[in-house]
């Protein structure tokens, strides 16, 4: 097993180099310079001043030199500094991660809590009205534009009912609150964003769960279990579920990179300073170091997520381990 993990880890390195190389050149291919955008087309900012800025940011050097310098910095665990405000990229990403991860973990938890039972029951009751209604329900969430649902809910709960705040993650007087008030304030602010992102993600997992459950229910050992007279509950929740959950383990592993990713539309609407907005703004401002930083961390997490999924899968399913050797 250790051998297997070590081999996989070594295999990650060339993939990582490939990913950074391609992304670095691609983002430099997109037209527009960061210094030009910073100046926002203001006649007060002269061409000479902008040329000076290019030089100070090292943008006058050839792209391959710029890439080499980026890699050299990275070898010292330095992601560089943002062109927009000269702050370290790691710091800019670091301050946005907690809220992004919090929302993603909460909504992922909510998705699993809702989607697994929905998937199981609709598999067990395949073809019934319940199955059809739940299918329609999860697909409504899947198909509905996030921003539209978000705005409707904000209008309902924020403006008309006045139960929840419209946007942001904290109230203005948050610092003066006591612990309980702080917790309630955060919960009230996060309620809608978490609900919306969970609702739109429900379809995927519940359908996986349903398919995988259906597949298992048709297996011979289930027939055996039923034949030896076990109660239906035990057949489903002990024998079938254990096996049907296997593919879901893979999905959890693959969700790891998603935990740091955010949606720009969603974060803009709720005024949440998360990763999606950071990435989008960086792209629009051609803030190369930040773009590279986000993509690099995303790439690492994706590769590690794949590895974790494979390893866990091998661990819970002996069949894989045997053939993997």
């Amino acid at each position, binding site marked *: 097993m250790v051998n297997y993990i070590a081999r996989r880890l070594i295999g990650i390195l060339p993939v990582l180099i490939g990913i950074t190389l391609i992304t670095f050149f691609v983002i430099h291919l997109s037209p527009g310079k960061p210094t030009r955008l910073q100046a926002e087309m203001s006649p007060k900012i002269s061409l000479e001043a902008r040329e000076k800025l290019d030089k100070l940011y090292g943008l006058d050097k050839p792209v391959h030199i710029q890439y080499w310098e980026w890699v050299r910095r990275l070898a010292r665990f330095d992601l560089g500094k943002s062109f927009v405000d000269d702050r370290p990229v790691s710091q800019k990403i670091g301050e946005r991660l907690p809220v992004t991860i919090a929302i993603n973990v909460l909504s992922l938890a909510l998705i699993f809590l809702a989607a697994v039972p929905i998937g199981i029951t609709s598999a067990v009751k395949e073809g019934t009205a319940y199955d059809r209604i739940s299918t329609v329900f999860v697909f409504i969430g899947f198909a509905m534009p996030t921003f539209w649902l978000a705005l409707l809910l904000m209008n309902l709960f924020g403006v008309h009912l006045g139960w929840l*705040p419209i946007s942001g993650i904290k109230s203005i007087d948050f610092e003066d609150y006591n612990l309980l008030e702080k917790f309630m304030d955060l919960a009230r602010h996060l309620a809608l964003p978490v609900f919306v992102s969970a609702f739109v993600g429900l379809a995927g997992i519940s359908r996986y769960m349903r398919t995988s459950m259906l597949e298992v229910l048709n297996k011979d050992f289930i027939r055996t279990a039923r034949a030896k007279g076990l109660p239906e509950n035990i057949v489903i929740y002990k024998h079938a579920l254990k096996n049907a959950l296997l593919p879901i383990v893979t999905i959890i592993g693959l969700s790891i990179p998603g935990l740091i990713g955010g949606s720009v539309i969603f974060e*803009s609407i709720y005024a949440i300073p998360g990763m999606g907005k950071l990435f989008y703004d960086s792209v629009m401002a051609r803030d190369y170091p930040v773009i590279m930083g986000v993509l690099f961390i995303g790439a690492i997490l994706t590769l590690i997520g794949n590895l974790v999924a494979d390893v866990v899968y091998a661990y819970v399913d002996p069949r894989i381990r045997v053939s993997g050797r």
Partner: protein
Amino acid sequence: MHIKISRFVGIFLFIVWGHAPLGWSQYGDAIVTASIGDASTLIPILASDSSSAEICGLIYNGLIKYDKNLNLEGELAESWEIKDGGLVIIFHLRKGVRWHDGEPFTARDVEFTYLKLIDPNVKTPYSGDFERVKSLEVLDEHTVKVTYKEPFSPGLSSWGMGIMPKHLLENEDLSSTKYARDPVGTGPYRFKEWKTGEKIVLVSNPDYYEGRPFINRYIYRIIPDQATTFLELQTQGVDQIGLTPLQYSRQTDTPFFRKYYRKYKYPSFGYAYMGLNLRDAKFSDARVRLALDYAIDKDEIITGVLLGLGRVSTGPFPPESWACNKDIKPVPYDPVKAKELLREAGWEDRDGDGILDKDGQKFKFTIMTNQGNDPRKTASEIIQRRLRDIGIEAEVRIIEWATFLSEFIDKGKFEAVIMGWSLSRDPDCYDIWHSSKTRPGEFNFVGYNNAEVDKLLLEGRREYGQEKRREIYNRINKLIFDDHPYIFLYVPDALPIVHERFKGIEPAPAGIGYNFIKWYVPKREQRYTRW
């Protein structure tokens, strides 16, 4: 007797609370404003985006500023003298002004700010105006003498740049200093906190030289989505924003908004235009450009795009500016006249397909504008339709901003573009109109070249007297308007909305923000009292 006294007190309190901000009782409350984007740095000479500039404006002071009627007045400089035909400016600085940390403000701070502005290792985009300074001498603690290489009148207003504290920033790298996110200035508000992407909070400076501002806290919330901002407005979650024309005329026309908010409207300091590439053979003929102006119905665009909340632009200066030539009348909508002019220029529909042609070439061109600006997109479509009426086929192309600038504007690869300028208060527009400013990346990208305008632009920069300058810029206004390098479209109105509890707002040519430190909320209407 007892009753009389209490009645007297009652009347007194009524006067104090109900009318003017006389007593201590009017201090307090917070104002919450919303912005689409976050600031990037709070070092004034590095701040190039509007959010950073807005916050810097409250934390720092310049030597001079524009008053409510858009005339220059002293800020950190009490007064100034212009000598030697404009070569020398002597600033007499205000005494007794203190930085937020208590240190006195002196001429050394001005010198320090200047040296940073011209330092080649400082990432400031504003070095241009200051590189014309030959020397800056500190005559004494409160007097600074600036000598220019040649007279440069727009230079005076460049001293509105926020002055930075030497004692704190002297040994700092301005780009990465902690003071970029924890600034110390001399301005009416002190920095309190900045939560990236969330909010910036400022608190009033009790030591401010013009007196402590009445509103205790200034909260700058970052809400990237316009629809969200508007929902926040409906729950009174934000106090002040700029409205879109649609929000101004329709969505805020409800009993709720009439009760809780006040709307304001005044011309903004900018204009939208259709720029024509004068290097293009079609547009090098002045008759064609004039014909296009006749063919485009500016009023229709203002109605359609701004819902009437704007006015026709008549040249490179906004109507509120003293430089604007008030005698210029916009070119009226007259398609017949337009066709006549085009025929004179040789454009006629010879093959009967409805499109004008000349020497076998059809009159076709592309109007480009940037993505994310709906008014410009709508204006392009209206123009497209009107041009079709006179037999010109225009295609509209919307391009992402960065690509638009670098691939099309900078390289001169365009036929017509719809864009806008936001202007500084000084009318100097050398960089936009002088024939030397046509290199890639410079602002005269349409390739305008008029020897008389070139000469006048230089003269305008040498002259300090406003009357003399008015003459010069009025003439520039006329010349440029008659040449039609741009089809000047409209000056949009600024449409701020402010919660009704804020009193003391007095709209003036400069807008409403100029007397922000005098705004106040009567004690009993204050909303944010916990701090």
